[in-house]
C-alpha cells in the first residue's frame, strides 16, 4: 500500500477537437479534478504532467493558465505509459513525505495521419521496418498459435469494448459495432482490420493525490467514497522477446523472458498485497484487439494461452465476473498518449465510487489499470475502496 488516496479526478473527453489546444484540454481536466478534491491555489506542492507531443513546458502552460505555479512541475514522457509514470513518481514523492498533495495530469493532441516516431533509425524507416501496426499484427498472429485466438475473437474484443463505450460520454466512439462490420473493415496488416486498431486522438485527464495521513478523518462533504492508491508501478523491458514493445530488430528463441507488463503487474500485486483473483474491474491497453488479449495473459487474468477462452466466457464483458475496459477502452476512446493511462485511472475511480451509470460494474472494490507502449514501458496501477 502506498498510503496515498485519490482526492479528485477530472477529464476532458477523448476525441478530435478543432481549435482546442493541448493547454485548453489540460486546464479543463485539472480544474475538474481540483474542484472535486476541494483543492485551490496553494493546495498542492508539486505537479507531474504526462505528455508525448505537447512540447516544451506543457505542464507549465496549463498551470500558468490556472494561476497555480511556483511548485515543481515536471513533464514526463514514457510513451503510452506516461500517465502511469507520472502517477508512480507522484505516489513515491508523497510516500517519502516530500509533499502532502500532488497534482498528476496528462494532456495530448496526437498529430493526424501516420505518426512518424523518432524511435526508429532512418535506415529502419527506409527499409520499411518502421511499420508499427505490422508489429501488432505479428503479435496477433503468434497469439493464434499460442492461445487459439481467431479473427472472430479479435472482432469480439472490438464489439465488447465498443458496446461498453456506447455509454461513456468521454469516449470518441459512442456507438456499438457488429462483428460483421469489424471484419468488413479493410485489412491493415493480416490479421488486423482497421476497426481492430485504436485511433490516436486528443484528450486530457487529471488526478489529485493526497497522503492518507493528511486526509481528513471523514471525507469532505462533496467527496464521494474514498479511493486508495494501492500500487503504482512502472517497469521497462528485459531483452529477449523479438515482439517486445522495446521493438528490437532481433530476439531469442527463449520464450521465458517476462514482459514489462508482467514485471509491472507482479510488482504492483506485491505492493498492494493483492492478486488477480481480487480484481473486480480492469482497464488495460487495447491499442489493438490482440493487445487486450495479450494483456489478459501478461497481467495474469488467465493462465498463459487462456485469453481466447476467457474472452469467449463473457467474463470480461460488462455483467461478467471481471469486466475489462468498461470505459470502452482505447478502441472506443482513442489514444491520446500522455492522457490515456490517467484516463483509465479516472474511469476506475468513478467505477469504485459507483458513478458510472449504464456501464457501472456493480460493487467494484478493487481495480487495476494497465498501459504499455514503446520504450518499452509498462505501468500498472491498483486502486481500492
Amino acid at each position: 500500500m502506498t498510503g496515498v488516496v485519490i482526492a479528485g479526478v477530472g477529464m476532458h473527453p477523448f476525441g478530435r477537437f478543432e481549435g482546442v489546444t493541448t493547454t485548453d484540454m489540460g486546464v479543463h481536466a485539472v480544474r475538474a479534478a481540483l474542484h472535486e478534491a476541494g483543492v485551490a491555489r496553494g493546495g498542492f506542492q508539486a505537479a507531474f504532467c504526462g505528455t508525448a507531443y505537447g512540447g516544451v513546458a506543457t505542464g507549465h502552460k496549463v498551470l500558468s493558465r490556472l494561476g497555480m505555479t511556483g511548485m515543481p512541475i515536471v513533464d514526463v514522457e514514457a510513451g503510452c505509459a506516461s500517465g502511469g509514470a507520472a502517477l508512480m513518481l507522484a505516489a513515491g514523492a508523497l510516500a517519502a513525505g516530500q509533499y502532502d498533495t500532488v497534482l498528476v495530469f496528462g494532456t495530448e493532441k496526437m498529430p493526424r495521419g501516420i505518426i512518424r516516431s523518432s524511435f526508429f533509425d532512418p535506415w529502419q524507416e527506409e527499409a520499411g521496418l518502421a511499420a508499427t501496426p505490422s508489429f501488432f499484427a505479428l503479435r496477433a498472429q503468434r497469439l493464434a498459435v499460442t492461445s487459439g485466438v481467431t479473427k472472430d475473437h479479435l472482432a469480439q474484443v472490438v464489439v465488447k469494448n465498443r458496446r461498453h463505450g456506447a455509454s461513456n460520454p468521454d469516449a470518441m466512439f459512442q456507438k456499438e459495432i457488429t462483428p460483421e462490420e469489424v471484419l468488413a473493415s479493410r485489412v491493415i496488416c493480416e490479421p488486423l482490420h482497421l476497426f481492430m486498431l485504436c485511433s490516436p486522438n486528443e484528450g486530457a485527464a487529471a488526478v489529485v493525490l493526497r497522503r492518507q495521513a493528511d486526509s481528513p478523518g471523514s471525507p469532505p462533504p462533496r467527496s464521494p467514497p474514498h479511493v486508495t492508491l494501492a500500487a503504482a508501478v512502472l517497469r521497462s523491458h528485459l531483452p529477449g522477446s523479438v515482439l517486445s514493445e522495446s521493438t528490437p530488430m532481433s530476439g531469442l528463441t527463449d520464450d521465458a523472458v517476462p514482459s514489462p507488463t508482467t514485471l509491472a503487474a507482479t510488482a504492483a500485486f506485491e505492493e498492494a498485497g493483492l492478486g488477480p483473483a481480487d480484481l473486480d474491474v480492469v482497464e488495460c491497453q487495447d491499442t489493438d484487439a490482440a493487445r487486450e488479449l495479450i494483456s489478459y495473459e501478461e497481467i495474469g487474468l488467465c493462465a498463459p494461452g487462456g485469453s481466447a477462452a476467457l474472452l469467449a466466457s463473457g467474463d470480461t464483458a460488462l455483467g461478467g465476473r471481471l469486466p475489462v475496459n468498461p470505459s470502452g477502452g482505447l478502441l472506443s476512446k482513442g489514444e491520446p498518449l500522455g492522457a490515456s493511462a490517467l484516463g483509465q485511472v479516472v474511469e476506475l475511480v468513478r467505477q469504485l465510487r459507483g458513478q458510472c451509470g449504464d456501464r457501472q460494474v456493480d460493487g467494484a472494490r478493487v481495480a487495476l489499470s494497465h498501459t504499455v507502449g514503446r520504450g518499452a514501458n509498462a505501468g500498472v496501477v491498483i486502486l481500492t475502496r
Partner: protein
Amino acid sequence: MRTMVQPGLFTDGEVPTLLGSRCTACGAHHFPRHDTCPYCATEDPVPVELAGSGTLWAWTAVTSPPPGYQGEIPYGFGIVELPEGIRIIARLTESDPAALAAGQPMELRIVALHADAEGNDVVTYAFAPGAP
C-alpha cells in the same frame, strides 16, 4: 550501382550474410551487431556472420507505406528463426500472407528498395521462401 540502406548490417555478395555478433560470456547471438551483450551486459561480443537460412516464425504484409518508406507496397514483413537461436525482424519477398506457412524454410536475399537521388539502387536484407 547498389548502395546499402545502412552499412554494417549485411554483406551483398553472391551468398549474402547478416552481420551479427555473439557474446562470449552467455553465448547469445545478436543482430545487428552490439558492442555490449543486451542479455548479460558483457562488453566483448565477437562479430559473426549469421546463417543465411532459417524458418518462418511469424508474418504479415504491409499494405500502406510506413513513415519514411519510398519503396513498393505491399511487401511481406515477418520474423525468421535462425539456427543460432535468434529471431530476426525482416522484410519478406512474399507479400501474400496466404502463400506462407509456419516453419517453412526461408533464405536470405538482398533486395532493392528504391533508387536514391544519384540513381543507385538502395538495397536491404529480406527473406524469401527457400528450398525445403
